[in-house]
């Protein structure tokens, strides 16, 4: 399968239906690359005409901005907006809620206005439109699954239902954690915490959240963010439950359940 870049589309005088903004985690992190590949595979399978920026994509500047380095954020944003506007990008889908939030909410005041969709919303739309068709009795049917709301999709942008709708379409038995939706507990990665050690405390935030997820008795913890996925996997490993409990992105779950 060949994934075309914006440059290739432009060279042929064509434009894609949507730009897939992969993000740094999705591009470089080995665990997150599996999410990227799963999502690309779904898009390809159902015939969505999509492009990536490839080597022209840069960090959105999110971790720099959250840490307080506005200058670096503005530089990254300037460069990315130049690229996106040069290609006349209209619609962006991304599998990272941090990229989603910043592209959707924080680029417009800087001159970069696009229709930005998180991949779980996009998947829900594809399922509703009948473009994504799921296997009868797929891998997750009837399985006890809990869903972790990422901060920047949930509280940050009030998207709570789309990912749950996708899980419903997979026929799972959704069990909620005590702290869910608006009360969802962070995985501990946001605000540039991913890139530094925790401040001194009793425990790590991801351990706390993973324990809560494990208490539901779910065999899969569904996530919508590459950082949450990493944090929760570490937490599950810490409890030595990695053999019985999987942490999966919703795109990975859909990719495994596609009808032939």
């Amino acid at each position, binding site marked *: 399968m060949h994934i075309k870049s914006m440059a290739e589309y432009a060279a042929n005088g064509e434009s894609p239906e949507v730009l897939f903004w992969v993000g*740094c985690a999705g591009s470089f*992190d080995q665990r997150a690359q599996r999410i990227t590949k799963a999502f690309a595979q779904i898009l390809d399978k159902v015939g969505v005409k999509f492009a990536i920026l490839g080597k022209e994509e840069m960090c959105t500047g999110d971790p*720099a901005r959250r840490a*307080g*380095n506005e200058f670096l954020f503005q530089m990254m944003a300037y460069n990315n907006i130049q690229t996106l506007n040069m290609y006349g990008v209209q619609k962006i889908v991304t599998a990272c809620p941090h990229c989603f939030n910043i592209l959707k909410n924080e680029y417009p005041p800087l001159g970069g206005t696009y229709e930005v969709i998180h991949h779980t919303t996009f998947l829900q739309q594809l399922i509703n439109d009948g473009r994504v068709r799921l296997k009868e009795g797929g891998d997750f049917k009837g399985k006890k699954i809990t869903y972790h709301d990422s901060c*920047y999709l949930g509280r940050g942008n009030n998207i709570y239902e789309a990912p749950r709708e996708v899980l419903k379409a997979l026929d799972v038995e959704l069990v909620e954690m005590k702290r869910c939706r608006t*009360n969802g507990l962070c995985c501990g990665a946001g605000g540039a915490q991913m890139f530094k050690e925790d401040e001194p405390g009793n425990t790590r*935030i991801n351990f706390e959240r993973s324990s809560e997820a494990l208490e539901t008795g779910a065999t899969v913890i569904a996530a919508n963010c590459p950082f949450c996925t990493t944090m929760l996997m570490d937490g599950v490993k810490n409890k030595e439950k990695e053999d019985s409990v999987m942490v999966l992105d919703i795109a990975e779950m859909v990719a495994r359940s596609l009808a032939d």
Partner: protein
Amino acid sequence: MQVIQQIFFILCVGVAVYFFSKKVGEIRRNIKLGKDEDLSNEPGARWRNMVLMALGQKKMFKKPIPAVLHFAVYAGFIIINIEILEIILDGVLGKHRLFAPMLGGLYSFLVGFFEVLAVLVWLACAVFLVRRNVLKVKRLNQHELDGWPKNDANLILSTEIVLMTLFLMMNTADLVLQTRGVAHYTITEPFWISQNFTGLFEGLSTGTLIAIERTGWWLHIIGVLGFMVYLPYSKHLHIVLAFPNAYYTRLQPKGEMDNMKAIQNEVLYMMQPELAPPADAAAAPQGFGAKDVKDLSWKNLLDAYSCTECGRCTAACPANITGKKLSPRKIMMDTRDRLEEVGRNINKNKGQFVDDGKTLVHDYITTEELRACTTCQACVEACPVGIEPLDIIHELRRYLVMEESNSPQEWNMMFGNIENNMAPWKFSPDERDKWAEEMANA
């Protein structure tokens, strides 16, 4: 004698109003020390927030038990204060139960209704005291509340109980005096609650009863006036400021951070020097982020005065839950404490702030606290009156990183990687689409 009472009463009201207005004026001035921020857009949505959050206490009902109790105190407080109108008119005019003859049966109904509310307030405050001091609910017993904040809370609750007791006691004595046909005591229908307690007072002499009734009346109104003077010094100020604060709370998505136009322009001129305006040597160098309260926006400062230290933010904070030093409530308390300190400094120095060598960051809020935040917005979501501790954290972080270059080593590496490799990790930008090549080859 009556005239002396009237003069004394008017004096009490005057003194209370004077001190209350003076402090309110200072708070207004302190809030205006903050930077300008235009929050006048979408008045419709803002009124809606005020009605739902402040008046309707929508977010309080996430925790139903304290919400119901709080609602009783709140409704009681607002409605019983209608009675204050009569008390003030009686006091000024030297009358007793001025409205009774005008309203007839309705009067007794109203007073009876106030009495029911008074009992509810009494009970709710008692339960609140138990929650704080006996059950020791975690969020009401954390470190940042040690000392004055705990005393403040207990003082408010005890005062409410005393005021309600005085109100009921005064009515009970009044009813007994009415049955004895004592002059001045207008005959009313029995009041719903106090009529059940008249037995306690029947053995007392008329003189004693008048003393009890008058003492109850005076202590009640002096208590209310004292409470008014005390209010702007207390966390209890939220009963007033919850309304403007809910009105001015941010409307954009919680995930959105405010743009810094100054830095946006700086980057723009660096990239496209032809757009840069001619250098203005006279322009004062501008600091980035917030080092002290005056660098925050007026809304951040209004937030600080609106906070009643309930700790819902801290109870929801992932950093605090896992034992880190960060507590969003402490961020708000520190901001208010520092702002009050700056205000006292201004009062002392004839309206000018004289540098005291202190700042909000470092002297009140440490880097360790600021660095523990995951920006998850749980504190903002939790606040029943629309306070945004995260906004202050963002501004202080901006100051630390951009003015002091004060960031952990790992963050400096992350910044370096973003700058050089266009990703927060040390990967070559050439490998960004390696996953796509792998898929092509699969």
